[in-house]
């Protein structure tokens, strides 16, 4: 203690409460921890990593030698991850409600938007980690071509990695947005898998829908991003489709979560 101290209060409170609220950094750390600290969460993360590795192994065994390149290993491993990352995004949000932890989470952090922001950052980091895993698995696969006699070409365009990153981050955030909007695990997963697929089917089936589908069907707008070369028009199409499937549900979901009664 330095300087003069005021008279101690008659009834001493046990501890002076920390005045500052939790920083976004701290909350993000907490949310990252929550992604992995349950059996279900840990398995989901492990599954993503295992499938990535399994796909590289499958390619080593069955793919033509010429296709056994770093870039090919990398691109191929993105697909299943792209399916599972949205589930991770959904669970990180809906788990709070299905497991009723929202009651304690939002009692500790009443400014719910901060929790949501931390969750979005956490799942984005998970998507970045999945890209690193894909790169790592692809590297191991390329090294292994030395034994299998594959092409073993190490060349990869930086833009391909960037595009992949954009897609995986978009995927995980779309999942989180659906979770925020529907606040119910099965509903969000089914909705997420079904709605865009329905679009694809309808867009292919109904002639007048074919034009809009090129802008709204994420299955189609994301396709060019598995290559190193993407045109400005293709970026625009991705942007529009993400506005509909990511930004709108995210904002509506945020509003819903902020207002919802926690019971």
């Amino acid at each position: 203690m330095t300087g003069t101290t005021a008279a101690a209060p008659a009834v001493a409170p046990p501890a002076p409460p920390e005045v500052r609220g939790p920083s976004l950094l701290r909350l993000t750390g907490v949310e990252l921890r929550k992604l992995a600290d349950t059996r279900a969460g840990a398995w989901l993360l492990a599954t993503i990593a295992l499938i990535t590795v399994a796909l590289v192994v499958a390619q080593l065994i069955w793919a033509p030698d010429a296709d056994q390149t770093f870039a090919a290993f990398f691109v191929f491993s993105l697909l299943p991850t792209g399916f599972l990352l949205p589930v991770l995004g959904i669970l990180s949000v809906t788990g709070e409600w299905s497991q009723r932890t929202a009651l304690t989470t939002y009692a500790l952090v009443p400014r719910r938007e901060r929790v949501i922001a931390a969750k979005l950052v956490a799942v984005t980091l998970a998507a970045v980690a999945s890209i690193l895993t894909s790169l790592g698995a692809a590297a191991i696969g390329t090294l292994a071509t030395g034994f299998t006699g594959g092409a073993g070409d190490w060349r990869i365009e930086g833009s391909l990695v960037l595009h992949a990153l954009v897609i995986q981050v978009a995927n995980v955030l779309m999942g989180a947005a659906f979770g925020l909007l529907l606040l119910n695990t099965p509903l969000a997963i089914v909705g997420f898998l079904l709605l865009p697929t329905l679009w694809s089917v309808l867009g292919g089936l109904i002639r007048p829908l074919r034009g809009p589908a090129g802008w709204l069907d994420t299955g189609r707008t994301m396709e060019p991003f598995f290559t190193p070369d993407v045109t400005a028009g293709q970026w625009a199409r991705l942007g529009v489709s993400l506005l509909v499937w990511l930004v709108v549900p995210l904002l509506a979901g945020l509003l819903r979560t902020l207002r919802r009664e926690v019971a």
Partner: protein
Amino acid sequence: MIAAEHLTKRYGRHTAVDDVSFRCEPGTVTGFLGPNGAGKSTTMRMICGLTPPTAGTATVAGRPYRGLPNPGREVGVLLDASAQHAGRTGREVLTVAAATMGVERRKVAAALDRVGLDGAAARRRVRAYSLGMRQRLGLAHALLGDPRILILDEPANGLDPEGIFWMRGLLRDFADRGGTVLLSSHLLREVEAVADRLVVIGGGRVVAQGGKDELLGGTGTRVRARDLPGLRRALDTAGLAAAASGTDGSLLVSAGPDAVGQAAADAGIALTELRPAGDGGLEQLFLTLTTVDTAREAVR
């Protein structure tokens, strides 16, 4: 300190909480009593900023709950012991909370210790916990941030008698050190032993509130002896008004147990029962509340 002012919550046409006001002062335990469905939990959720009130306000430590920068360090909240992720271990639940509040990790072990959850229990997943263990974990969670205020919804649910006794001691001690406690229960006996003040709620409205002694002890003494005529004479001699109460042969005296016991002793009468009768009044009120509720259910 906790202050609820005119809290009201309506769901469509149903009014769950209707103009509820009360205060909880530092150094006291306030028992929040009412039958199931009376609006206790809804009121507590409104105080904690989890349920937006239709009307009215609530403050905790002088501020609206949602305005507290780091609520866990000022208010310990246990609203539902079962609202924990079944897949997390007890220790992990507290570790996550400690990280959120910015409490040192080593306090987690201390908190587990404080509520009597040993190492083996802490390593188990909450799924495998009994309700009593969940309550203990919830209490550890509430105490983790060293708060000065506790808000606990039915914390004695699922605890065994020994656990209830232990919790009473803990809450009493917490209040005696200057803390503020608000705890709810649907059992009068459960809070009677620890509360200083009572707020009784029924059908969403406060039907009685005040000091426990005032509410429970205000209406006299119930006394019984094998020699009933002798007891009557003794009370007459001492100038105490007595009336037969009910069918059990006991007398209701409008005086404290001290005076009644002394009068009987002076006359050499052996008592078989001597206790404040006032709780009968509150219990009666309680019963009425429950009956009204049941009747309403039946009409619906």
